[in-house]
């Protein structure tokens, strides 16, 4: 089961900000505040087929049934990682928790929480635990290509925010041809 609590909490900081980095399992979290109601943000996120719109490295997500989906993700240097994911816990309008199924390329689990934040909208917090492919080396290589999940998650959440707040994702591309080239 996915842990977001510390075993011996000493302060209010999230467990992922811990300076204790023992072990190979990577834990990351990123938070963004979106100026839209939680119900709307949740509904958008719950439709997994929409996620590749703002998740840069997700090539596609095939929705298999209400709880299961197949993920195809771009890794460093044209590599591909695939797995099936299952929603193991879901609180309508508040949170989604998933776990990858056995036999995938990347073992991962995570939770996205949607918290009402009054006039500021919704705080979306994504917490992800994963075993990096190829261990520490894989993580170094990934970082080099900026496919490292903590950077990626942060950027993806920003794109989600842009999409929901402004109806589009900001780009500096001067014209559609340059945009297509950048999207590669």
């Amino acid at each position, binding site marked *: 089961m996915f842990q977001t609590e510390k075993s011996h909490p000493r302060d209010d900081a999230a467990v992922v900000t811990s300076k204790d980095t023992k072990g190979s399992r990577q834990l990351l979290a990123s938070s963004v*505040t979106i*100026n839209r109601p939680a119900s709307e943000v949740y509904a958008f996120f719950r439709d997994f087929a929409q996620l590749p719109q703002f998740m840069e490295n997700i090539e596609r997500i095939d929705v298999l049934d209400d709880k299961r989906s197949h993920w195809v993700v771009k890794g460093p240097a044209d590599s591909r990682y695939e797995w099936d994911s299952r929603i193991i816990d879901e609180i309508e309008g508040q949170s989604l928790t998933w776990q990858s199924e056995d036999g995938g390329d990347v073992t991962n689990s995570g939770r996205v929480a949607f918290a009402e934040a009054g*006039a*500021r*909208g919704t705080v979306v917090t994504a917490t992800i635990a994963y075993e990096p492919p190829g261990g520490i080396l894989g993580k170094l290589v990934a970082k080099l290509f900026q496919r490292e999940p903590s*950077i990626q998650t*942060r*950027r*993806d959440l*920003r*794109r989600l*925010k*842009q999409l929901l*707040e*402004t*109806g*589009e*994702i*900001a*780009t*500096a*591309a*001067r*014209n*559609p*041809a*340059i*945009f297509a080239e950048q999207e590669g």
Partner: protein
Amino acid sequence: MRALTWHGKHDVRVETVDDPGIVNPRDAIIKVTSTAICGSDLHLYDHYIPTMQAGDILGHEFMGEVVEIGPKSTLKIGQRAVVPFTIACGSCYHCGKAQFSACDNGLPADNQDIAREAYGQPMSGLFGYSHMTGGYSGGQAEYVRVPFSDVGPIVIPEGIEDDKVLFLSDILPTGWMAAENCDIEPGDTVAVWGCGPVGLFAVQSAFLLGAERVIAIDHFPKRLELARRFGAETINFEESDTYEALMLMTGGIGPDAVIDAVGLEAHGLFVDNVVDQIKASTFLGTERTHAIRQAIIACRKGGRVSMPAVYGGFVDKFPLGALMEKGLTLRTGQTHVQKYLPALLAAVLEDKIDTTFLISHRLPLEDAAEGYKLFHDQQNEATKVVLKPGLSTAT
């Protein structure tokens, strides 16, 4: 199209590049009729701003005619509009509070990390000002893609010449916000360090906001003369001791509010790894730090310090003690251009603010590289250079 592109230190060229086009639904394409070289462009010219790439199109003060619109733009083809230098979405929390330069969504997601590292949070995007501020193609070109065109550009009525409204894009609202940040009360004396374009607009704005006296400080005689034209008393800091002069002018009290407009030409966003390089340059040398230090020391007890001048990195010997002991209020920030446009356009149209006094040179876009050299080398004479893409090189 033709555009002014950056290639390195003191190397800018007018080249033919790919035309812009609509990418996002809220975009518009503007055909540029006037575009100015900003003092802050000189920092790009001198290559003190990191994250520039060869071929980047410069320019963030521009206006023109709407020639193409995305499905969600509210502009109409054929309208003339002035475009704010800050790229802001209008729908995030900060835009909702009219803090447009703090927009959450103006920067592409991937470009936000540098500002996050340097400042803790990313700011709005800027046109033509390095990849740290978004990597957006700028306005010193025949055409520009303008994102969020339903929020930023302000439509200009027919019959109003470009020169009168062009500076709504940056320096006029920047000078206005500098004065507004002084919280001027009736009878106040406001001192302005620096009589560049923003300082001169701050002088006019301070009077409009109710200042009884404005004291302008600079060392270029021509710029001090312009400040005097708007009713300011002046101090030439090369000829007089600024602090002592201010004390005598204010009965030993000090100005009620002070504006540091010395470094304000820079909208520069420096990160600490280039601070040493910057310090070594003339731009962030001792003199500029001297201005804010002197302003804080001269300011009266309980007074207000307004700092439109940009400090991108870290400053040594900042008089934190004087700020604290005298109970001063420090207000600063990149300009929330969109917030001020309607009221400032009205003020310009009613001739409450003079905007045309500043322009010393009008050149065709084709001569933009010469324009940079002129603006860079002759600061007393070249108060403002405006490029006109439509102007023939023969004239």
